[in-house]
């Protein structure tokens, strides 16, 4: 294992220490239990929006804390969900009296830890609504599995829910925005290489030099198929087809097209993918009105990409364009 780390056990702690000194204008970091919180939290009368999950997906979630997006983020160990005490303390820290939205990715551990935290927060008199994102169309059999995984749509949900909260909408209204993203967003990813979890020290899965995994999860969960590496255009088709098939989209719909790097794939390749994905969307009668291209929900140093499409309406467009000021996303201010 070659990594720019000191000790595997210190990875998350030392990353947080870096954030403390890098972005004091945007965030504060609370240690033990660990969470990243907006420097100006809590904001009276504003719904608090929090998320969290295993580390290793940066900039998600800590990099999305700030004006117009998350109020707090709880990082677990690498690829391990955070614990209820983190979410409870984060919930209390961002509660401005208008309630708190938990955006939870659909993984067994995340759900259980967030559920326990929500129970504890409610017991302390804080109104909490939790919405689970589950947009990964690679999971076909969701009846006999833990269900579709929460992936790319989570980033988009955090952006638009954060904007809605900033506009002082009610908890139920902010939750409705999240439900809309959950209903209208679909994703699929692929990997060219595995990643190595620091405390494991070796690649999570074996992927021969000339093969790729289509439908990979953001922790290296297996996808739909493994095959010889193909061209960027063919790979884009393989990702776009199941997304479009699954979307509740019709001819003429407007969409946000999000091409994401799994961490190891450079922007030059992402634009090649975007070019083809845009063409496929157009041919399918979808109008791409916004986009996001870059490493926004990663899987350590895994090479590969994911594509997310989110159907947009006027409200989502306004919320997407609303100013945001975080480490990971920043525009309009």
């Amino acid at each position, binding site marked *: 294992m070659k990594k720019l780390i000191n000790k595997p056990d210190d990875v998350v702690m030392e990353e947080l220490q870096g954030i403390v000194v890098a972005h004091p204008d945007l965030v504060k970091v609370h240690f033990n*239990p660990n969470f990243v919180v907006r420097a100006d939290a809590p904001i009276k009368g504003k719904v608090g929006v929090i998320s969290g999950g295993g580390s290793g997906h940066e900039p998600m979630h800590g990099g999305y804390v700030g004006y117009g997006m998350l109020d707090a983020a709880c990082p*677990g160990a690498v690829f*391990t*969900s955070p*614990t209820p005490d983190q979410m409870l303390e984060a919930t209390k820290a961002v509660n401005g009296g208008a309630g708190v939205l938990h955006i939870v990715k659909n*993984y067994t*551990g995340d759900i259980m*830890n967030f559920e326990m935290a929500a129970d504890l927060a409610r017991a302390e008199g804080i109104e909490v609504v939790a919405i689970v994102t589950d947009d990964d169309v690679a999971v076909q059999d969701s009846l006999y599995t833990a269900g579709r995984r929460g992936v790319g749509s989570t980033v988009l949900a955090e952006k638009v829910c954060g904007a809605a909260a900033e506009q002082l909408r009610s908890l139920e209204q902010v939750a409705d925005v999240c439900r809309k993203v959950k209903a209208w967003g679909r994703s699929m990813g692929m990997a060219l290489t595995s990643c190595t979890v620091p405390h494991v020290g070796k690649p999570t899965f074996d992927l021969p030099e000339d093969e790729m995994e289509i439908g990979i999860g953001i*922790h290296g*969960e297996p996808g739909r198929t493994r095959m010889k590496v193909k061209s960027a255009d063919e790979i884009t088709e393989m990702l776009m087809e199941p997304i479009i098939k699954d979307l509740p989209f019709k001819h003429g719909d407007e969409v946000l097209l999000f091409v994401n790097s799994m961490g190891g794939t450079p922007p030059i390749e992402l634009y090649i993918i975007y070019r083809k994905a845009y063409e496929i969307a157009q041919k399918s009668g979808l109008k791409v009105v916004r986009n996001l291209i870059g490493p926004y929900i990663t899987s350590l140093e895994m090479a590969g990409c994911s594509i997310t499409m989110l159907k947009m309406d006027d409200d989502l467009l306004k919320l997407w364009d609303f100013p945001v000021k975080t480490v990971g996303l920043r525009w309009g201010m």
Partner: protein
Amino acid sequence: MSINRDEALEWIKACVEILGENRDYLTQLDAAIGDADHGANMDRGFKAVMGKIPEMSDKDIGTIFKTVGMTLLSTVGGAGGPLYGTFFIQAGMKTAGKMELSLEDWTSAMDAALSGIVMRGKAELGDKTMVDALTPALNALKQAMTDDLPLNQALKNSAEAAREGMVGTIPLVARKGRASYLGERSAGHQDPGATSSYLILKTAADTWSNS
């Protein structure tokens, strides 16, 4: 024929040791069908429990179990944290105030612990989870009560039933947790959660073999 407070603490300490020794083994099992963190997570959690031993040592058994549960809940993470946290917290609630446990006490504690896990994780028997080791272990305790067996024999039977349940997860197709994404490919691998559950119950039987 009972387990006293000091023996309960001995079990907890022995669990710290056993889970430390099996850290890489559990992680390997998890790497095959999960996300390769179960061993590291359990080891981190029980190491934190070790740090709480001084403050637990003069408390009743219920308080000890509850403290173990709360500590695991805030240090393990993943699915294991809430599940083992719930396991020990529920067992602690059933044994609140007790300085000594009979077979009946232990059985009702394990009954509450398993019910808590099923409620939290919503897994059923045969889903390839820790429930597959814990359910037969609890049934063995109930059978031992019916048969009027001594406590140490009951614990031994219970650990053996957990072992059989654990081995029985090998051919199963996972329906819960991250392993479920593998579908048929999850068959042929032993479930790491069932394995850690077996280790914990086996440690109880070994620690309390003279009880």
